[in-house]
């Protein structure tokens, strides 16, 4: 019964958390590795976590904290501008995207996505986690603080720094994205 519930949870949320992990890590390979590690840990604690009624909060926390730990262990991310797979995706956006059944929403979006990913990866992992949880997961500042185990004030300051950093690295992209909203 527990395995069934766990499997159902994973099946229902795999894509969602794979994408969250992707935004946190900037790499498809690292995202899947991080998510799998977190879900394995979730399995071993499933009974307790499920008893809280909100396994999603637990997974978010493990992904965010796991990526910060991963980032601290190896800061090589700072030395890499674009992951090989990202470069490949950008170069082959048309055929690759079509082959995968993905639809482009505006011309040149792949290049912008690469720029955004590059800008995100230049942020410290903590700021990146705040930005992604706040603006992708649409969590409130209080919820982000609970996930990361810090104060709301820290979330506010990290968010401001993340935005400033992204603005600095991504001014051209932000301007274009803003025009689409």
């Amino acid at each position: 019964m527990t395995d069934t519930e766990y499997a159902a949870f994973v099946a229902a949320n795999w894509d969602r958390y794979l994408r969250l992990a992707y935004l946190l890590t900037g790499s498809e390979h690292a995202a899947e590795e991080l998510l799998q590690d977190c879900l394995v840990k979730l399995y071993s604690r499933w009974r307790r976590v499920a008893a809280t009624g909100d396994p999603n909060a637990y997974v978010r926390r493990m992904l965010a904290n796991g990526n910060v730990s991963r980032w601290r262990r190896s800061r090589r991310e700072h030395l890499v501008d674009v992951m090989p797979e990202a470069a490949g995706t950008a170069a082959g956006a048309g055929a690759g995207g079509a082959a995968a059944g993905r639809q482009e929403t505006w011309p040149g979006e792949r290049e912008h996505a690469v720029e955004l990913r590059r800008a995100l990866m230049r942020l410290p992992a903590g700021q990146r986690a705040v930005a992604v949880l706040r603006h992708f997961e649409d969590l409130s500042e209080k919820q982000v603080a609970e996930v990361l185990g810090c104060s709301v004030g820290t979330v506010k300051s990290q968010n401001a720094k993340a935005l400033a950093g992204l603005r600095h690295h991504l001014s051209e992209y932000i301007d274009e994205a803003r025009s689409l909203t």
Partner: protein
Amino acid sequence: MTDDERALSAALHDMAEHGPSGSPPISRLLSRGRRRRHTRSAFACAIGVTGAGVLAALASAGPGAGTSADTASGAHGATTRPGPVALSLAAERTDAGPFHFSLTSKTPEPGGKAGEPPRTGTSEGAFDPSTLHGYTRAVGGGVSAQSIRIGDTCYSQPTPGAPWLRFTCSTSASGTSLASLTQDPANALKQLEAAGRATYAGRTGSGSGEVDTWKFTFSRNAQGSAGAGTIQIGYTVTGTATVGVADGHIAAIDYTVTTAPSPMIAHSVTDVSITFSDYGAPVRVSAPADSIGVKSP
């Protein structure tokens, strides 16, 4: 929300939309999860039962048990200095009032390869046996958890920010868990039969820092839970216990657990150090404001 934030939100969603997707490797996750659960259970059992076994060993080193080097050589009778403090007496004294402790353990990474650095976990806490009030905070080794005990009610927070879980403290595990070593050593002594031998290794230090050191070693087989079944774990424990000469309290226990390889658990070496301090200092804990009632784990 500012324009910049709205733009960032849109951009992140777009980036994620074009990010990775696919079928979850559920079979692989279940398989890895089961292995991890078995390993965790096995280690927890090995360390926990070991902790109790250490105390049992200490009990066996009480008056008339173990071999005091001083006594054996006859040197004790030729000096006016008091003899070594019996470990069982020290354990009883430790349990007579509130005490604080810190614990460091170094365990192999589950599934890790030989030669990889061990996972270091540290925790600190306090316990008052008379009121059954206590707490532990664990940090490191990929773990960050807190637990509180108030009488027979236990609270646990698996990770920072997570909801507190409330449950009735387990009584069945009190004599065989690592917690029993730090929270209720005397009870552990009563529950476990003598598991080994201890020998007096001498007295070092001076003044308030003067301590008696006891060495111990023993081997045992323990039964641990592994999913729905049980597994046998063989292990050997070697270590030392130091007792303050001035106050007769246990000052520290350091031991190494070496598990024998089995189908469920690889050969491993785990080092544990526990330091006791602040005897008599009050232990103040309060129940978390919000908690979720769950069945005892």
